[in-house]
């Protein structure tokens, strides 16, 4: 039971501000806006996985499904803006997940957010050798807490993922990180060089967040 992150309670389709603020209003008339109207937050939300792929494709933009078991939240995010390999993925309410080189580096609006970090790129994760992660997250009394971990990756074989009606063959990687009396495991499902799905730890409040790339 536990408190819900209010911003993510609804499975909102997103108003994707893919370019700038001006771009935001332009998108309202397109497929994304139409689907947004269908799924505006009210009581009986269907489970995210119940939405047919055809509906999602109407939005016309890449979509990642973000899930968090700790608070039972699910939301679709689309690319809001990008700079080099860094992409900000956002929901309609402005909840933000920032990925650099495919790896989650920051969140906003999830509660107990990861405010900043020093993370490896996906290349470093795949390579398997020892690498480091530093997390700076918001904890009690709104203070920033720091966690430094040393990580190594292990490939555990192939796995076929069924995502919204399509099957993807992937390689499953498990990254084990230790430090400060803590051990956690991040998981990546690689489809070639693309991260098809990942399960990454964000902060003590949130725990793990699962990111599934649904629409490319």
């Amino acid at each position, binding site marked *: 039971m*536990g*408190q*819900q*992150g*209010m*911003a993510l309670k609804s499975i909102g389709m997103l108003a994707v501000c893919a370019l700038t*603020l001006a771009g935001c209003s332009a998108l309202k008339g397109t497929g994304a806006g139409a689907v947004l109207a269908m799924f505006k937050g009210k009581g009986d939300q269907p489970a995210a996985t119940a939405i047919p792929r055809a509906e999602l494709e109407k939005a016309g933009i890449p979509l990642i499904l973000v899930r968090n078991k*700790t*608070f039972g939240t699910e939301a679709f995010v689309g690319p*809001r*803006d990008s*700079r080099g390999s*860094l992409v*900000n993925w*956002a929901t309609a*309410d*402005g*909840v*933000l997940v*920032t990925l*650099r080189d495919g790896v989650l*580096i*920051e969140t*906003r*609006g*999830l*509660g*107990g*957010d990861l*405010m*900043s*970090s*020093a993370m490896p790129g996906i290349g470093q994760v795949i390579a398997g050798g020892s690498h480091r992660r*530093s997390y*700076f997250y*918001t*904890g*009690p*009394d*709104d*203070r*920033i*807490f*720091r*966690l430094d971990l040393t990580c190594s990756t292990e490939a555990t074989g192939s796995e076929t993922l069924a995502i919204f009606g399509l099957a993807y063959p992937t390689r499953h990687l498990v990254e084990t990180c230790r430090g*400060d*009396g*803590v*051990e*956690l495991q991040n998981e990546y499902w690689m489809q070639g060089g693309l991260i098809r799905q990942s399960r990454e*730890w964000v902060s*003590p*409040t949130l*725990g793990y967040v699962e990111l599934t790339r649904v629409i490319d």
Partner: protein
Amino acid sequence: MSTRRSKSQLAVTALAGLLCGPLAVPARAEMRPTLSFTGVPGLIDMPSGEAMADGNFSVAVAGFGPITRTTLSFQITPWLSGSYRIQNTRNWNEVVNDPANPENLYSSYNDRSFDLRIHLLKESGWRPSVTIGLQDFAGTGKFGAEYIAATKTIGDRVKITGGVGWGRLGSYNSFGSPFGDRPDPDVGRGGKPNANTWFRGPASFFGGIEWQLNDAWTVKAEYSTDAYGEEAGYRKTFERRSPFNFGIEYHRDETMSVGIYSLYGSEIGFNVNFVLDPKRRAMTGILGAGPVAVGQRPSRSADPDAWDGGWVTQPDAAPILRDNLDKYLNPDGIYIEDFAYTATTVQIRIRNDKFDAGAQAIGRTARALSHVMPASVEVFEIVPVVRGMAASKVTMRRSDIESLEHVANNGAVLRDRVAFGDASGGLAGGSGADPEYYPQFNWGLGLGYRVSAPARGDVGLRATASYELPQGIVLSGSVYGRVYDNLDKVFVIDKGGSLPPVRSDVRDYNEDSPLALERLQAAWYAHPADNIYTRLTFGYLEPMHAGISGEVLWKPVDSRLALGLELNYTKQRDTDGGFGFGDYDYSIATGHVSAYYDFGNGFLGQLDVGRYLAGDTGATITLDREFANGWKVGAFASFTSASAEEFGEGSFDKGLHLTIPMNWLLGQPSRKEMDATIRPLQRDGGARVDVQGRLYDTIRDYHTGRLDEQWDSRVWR
């Protein structure tokens, strides 16, 4: 560069065991403390040696037989906690017959008490946790007790408590008086610490056991050494047949528990507790939409024209830039009060209406500037404005904003590169606020309450409105309409005192005004010189007094110390809540010199010396603890020339103050707060004009003391 005052906010945590779920209460080897009927960590009626987690705030409502207790407790520091309690005993005068004792006039008696607990030892290894407690250390002494209690955890489900108690806790089956006899408390009018009684008189051993069956259910048993001599023995309000108490409690989570008990072999009792940890937000965390990405300028080599400073000569540059900035800022509740620029520097004066943390408004403004300002502008000066006063000037370099956006620990890194200064006077080259913003009319309607006596008063609707004009002029008022009251249940006893009734006629004020004009005033705020702020308020300043109030405050942006001077001239208003002054022919000039000190870590102190409404002179000392999210708990006491006899019951004015920010409850951005002041008694000594909008709290949010508490976690949010 102004250096940060408080030490770095970074904390390294040991997170063992916390990965599976939400952040738990700080990991401790022992079980969580549970509260007793007296609202402090304890068993049933007996205290234990534990302490609540630092900063925790609890409300306990417990009762058995004729007795009901409501206790507020606050863990002021990890080793010191305080409590404020009201105990109501029914059937107080049912069997006694002594007319000489004024207490016997009450059929139901309210006793207020203050406690202090000092946590001497934390539990670890073989060592138990040990606490010394002073119960009802200042007051009529009816509830007075002192104790040393120790609690040890066995395994991870059982706690054993044992201790020695004096006073009430030594009244049953004592083993002797190790420190001599207990003199009668020097009660006088009550309200003063009875130090000469502490740890004196008969002492007894008390103890008990607490067994946690599972995460939700706990069973307790204890041996109580409180004989209830007055309640059970003398007044026979209940029968104390046995010293053994038992009970079972349901703990829904760390925040709430309910219990049912068998007490003294004759009564069934209940205990409901709420524990709040202000450091943990009610809604998972700080919510609200994320910020736009920082705007990045093109490189000089790729686009040298963009870096040209010629745009400054464009006559319509200002309106265009302001419009574009509004597109970013207004959705975040930030409005431009003024705006001026050169080719390399821009100063923007903003009003922050939404974010509780000034640092977040500053960060959002920097992002907006990074998108809108032409590339040649390198220096951002962001000036938060409150009621027309520029509270501070935050200077940062655009290159730092661009380069630090996704750097690890960027909050602290940016703080080291930012300069804070004063921003008095107007902005040269600025054209002021958008004419559409002013006048600003705001209104609100909500439930309110008025207290005449403990647990007596009325509830009703309160309508407030404010009309803000540019240049720091604010017209405001509030009207209260009574909906329901239990005033007729107040049993009035002359509580003594010979001061003019500047406050003690509160019952008349509440009774006579079903509809009351509480406030109607015009205030003018200014920032005339560096570090100097001024206020002038005129009108019906508060429900009981009207007049004029002027204030000057000296407060540099990064100083721990602030000094102020306030002068007022007021007349006492009629009790009917209207515009007249005929009831009391009383006017007085009052004033104070004030010193404010920010001790760091959220502890604030204030000392006011001067003349109070009843003509008495003296000092008020206030201590507050403020949390980063805006929670504030404080206590105050006034010591004035009004002798205890003149003051009446209570001896001196004292009370508690509590502020709960709305954004803590909701998670979403909001600057609204709920405020409550609790006084055991409203008497006439040490009374200040209750004028709203004093300077210190108005501008503090944008000075480094407060900004730094929130900077690291908010400036990049």
